[in-house]
């Protein structure tokens, strides 16, 4: 069932790998530091993101679409690959957990106030397991349809808020120091670094050699959509009120109106967001399962998806019960972990490739 994913489809996968939680979590964090200069912080993080995409793309080019951990095992030693695999599995389990928790928290805050979290988690997980079992190509196809829906939602969002937007709310620009802007761009950079998921999607890509282009295209779209959402929220609410809102993008959606007959459309936008976060969660669950498969060298991962899902649900229910803890992790802890696994690991892979190639060359000369 696992057919190959085209380059455009893969770029769209990268968009929804990053965007759904980014639109929910980031605006509050960025605008807290940078206020009306928030778009500059996104530009800065997009620049760092493109650099990370370059590193990840280079790593994928080195592996040439081979399973990442198997390749590491071949180039270094199986023991190193196993240890790295265990750490990466932990990382992907944690990341999937936080995605699930952000998903559930958002639903609890906005729509399903009385529904128990455990029920939400289990239902979401069952649906996502079903998606993952259909394979990456099926997820990519669904994702392409979800992305196409932007053609409906973006104009609706813009035209519905035309009367409410005031471009002067973006002034004064450059009001914040470079230090503040860098601080504001750190968290979005960690999100951009999620492009590293390509390491585990590579075996399913039609052209793994184009991984850099896939990463760059995806990130440029993410940056554009993030800018779009944040700039509109800023123009509607201004830099002061936006800091108070937990979900500024969705608060703006609740103000969308066309005349007096179409209003209160937030539930429509929330439904669309739910579609896209299902795709995100399924991509990360897929990457987790891939990581597990490569670490433990199992032929078929199908029997283990449920178990991994159970681990994710349990961690989601018992580790991230407190929203403040999750917010603190997103704001401060996430950068270090993501830098380690999404930047240093692919950078190490590129280094390993160069090292082994140099070694082979030297051996060749020696012979």
């Amino acid at each position, binding site marked *: 069932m696992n057919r190959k994913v085209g380059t455009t489809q893969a770029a769209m996968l990268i968009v929804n790998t990053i965007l759904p939680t980014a639109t929910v979590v980031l605006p509050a964090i960025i605008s807290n530091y940078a206020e009306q200069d928030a778009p500059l912080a996104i530009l800065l993080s997009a620049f760092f993101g493109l650099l990370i995409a370059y590193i990840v793309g280079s790593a994928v080019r080195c592996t040439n679409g081979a399973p990442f951990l198997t390749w590491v095992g071949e180039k270094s030693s199986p023991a190193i690959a196993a240890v790295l695999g265990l750490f990466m599995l932990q990382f992907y389990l944690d990341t999937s957990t936080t995605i699930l928790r952000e998903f559930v928290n958002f639903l609890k*805050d906005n729509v399903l106030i009385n*529904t128990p979290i455990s029920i939400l988690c289990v239902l979401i997980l069952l649906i996502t397991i079903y998606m993952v079992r259909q394979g990456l190509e099926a997820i990519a196809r669904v994702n392409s349809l979800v992305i196409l829906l932007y053609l409906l939602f973006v104009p609706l969002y813009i035209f519905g808020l035309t009367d409410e937007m005031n471009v002067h709310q973006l002034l*004064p620009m450059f009001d914040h120091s470079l230090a503040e802007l860098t601080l504001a761009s750190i968290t979005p950079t960690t999100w951009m670094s999620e492009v590293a998921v390509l390491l585990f999607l590579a075996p399913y890509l039609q052209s793994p050699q184009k991984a850099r282009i896939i990463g760059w295209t995806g990130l440029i779209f993410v940056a554009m959509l993030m800018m779009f959402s944040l700039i509109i929220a800023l123009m509607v609410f201004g830099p*002061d*009120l936006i800091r*108070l809102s937990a979900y500024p993008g969705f*608060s703006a959606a609740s103000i969308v109106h066309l005349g007096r007959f179409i*209003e209160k459309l937030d539930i429509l936008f929330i439904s669309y967001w739910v579609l896209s976060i299902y795709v995100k969660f399924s991509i990360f669950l897929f990457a987790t399962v891939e990581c597990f498969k490569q670490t433990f060298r199992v032929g078929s991962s199908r029997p283990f998806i449920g178990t991994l899902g159970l681990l994710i649900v349990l961690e989601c229910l018992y580790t991230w019960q407190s929203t403040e803890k999750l917010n603190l992790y997103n704001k401060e802890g996430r950068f270090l972990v993501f830098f380690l696994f999404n930047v240093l690991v692919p950078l190490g892979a590129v280094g390993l490739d160069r090292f082994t190639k140099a070694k082979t060359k030297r051996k060749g000369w020696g012979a």
Partner: protein
Amino acid sequence: MNISKKNLICLLCLPLLSTLLSGCWDDRELSELGITSGSAYDWEDNQWKATYQVINPSSGASSTGGTGGGSTSSPPFVTFTVKGKTIMEAVEKTNLTSTRQMFFSHSRITVLGESLARQGVNQLIDMFLRKQDARETVYVFIAKGEAGDILDQLMQLTKNQGAGIQLMIEQESRLVSYYPGIRMFELAMALSSESGSAILPEILLTGREVMDETQETGRTDLKTRLALGRLGVLKGEKLVGWLSQKQAFGLSFMTDKIKTATIVFPSKPESGDKPDASFVLQKSRTTVHPKWENDHYVIDIHIKGSGVLSELGSVMDLNERASITEMEQALEQQVLELVDNSWKEVRKLGADVTGFAIKIHRSDRKRFKQIRKDKNWDRVFQEIEIRPHVSMKIERTGLSNKSFKSVHEK
């Protein structure tokens, strides 16, 4: 027994379907909801006094009038007044008297009593921004006395009073422009901005008696009606004073909130100050440029407008350019007086409802940062000098070239 594996799984799954019968945790039956169209809040005995206007589905009322299939003798809405130490405690207490759970997503208006506005509105705004079904797009008003009384008053041309008041303020800001309608998120934006001040339109009852019986709306001329009045000025979170309609109109010119307006003016100022002409201002644009001069800010306010002459009470030949110029100058003088009068009162109140702090922050951020650091914006605001420059253009003079009064002059 030769049951296939698939059938066995289906059979095992069947009992699981029964779990769906219990329904969703967040389900709400429409017949169990009390859809509120308006709410009012007062501060009494150190407690929140909340009044909720709930649409009565059995009255046959539609949102814009007309009658449906229900009973027309029962009121189109009912009100509940409750008290609590917090707003939510008051909301919960409605469940002790009502058969329906309050549902706020369709609210149109919120009225704040003067007592509450003097006490502070932060907690109320917080509730509106925090609560899931509260609507931040409700229009906010202020009432001189008890806000709850406003919600009891029936309206004639519309049965859904909340929607009716919303229409009133939308029409006022579109056609009269004395003040804009303020929604809850706009109030929050204004109070959290650099200015830290906001305005709220007043809603009042024109008579002493509240018309709260359906039979009373059968009269052609109600003794008491709902009307929009002055403009309440909030600083920080508290009401600090009022602007008259005329002063509010001047403020609308300063803050570029004019959509359409009618200006009355003396067509021949040298013959007397009595207004005898009307001008419909169709386009208006205000630009504000702050600059630092010596030791204080000078705000250049450029107001440009154009429109059509709609009424003339003096003898005048409108084919002559001199007559038009004379009237344009009179109009400009009129707008200048409105602006000056408004600025004097705003400065007296010490509340920056003009948004000058925002403009200064945008154009002179370094000095503004220092002002904010020194916490002396109030002093800086008091020392501001405004220089209004008005340019009015009469683009058309309507369907007559001369005033009707000129017929008698022959």
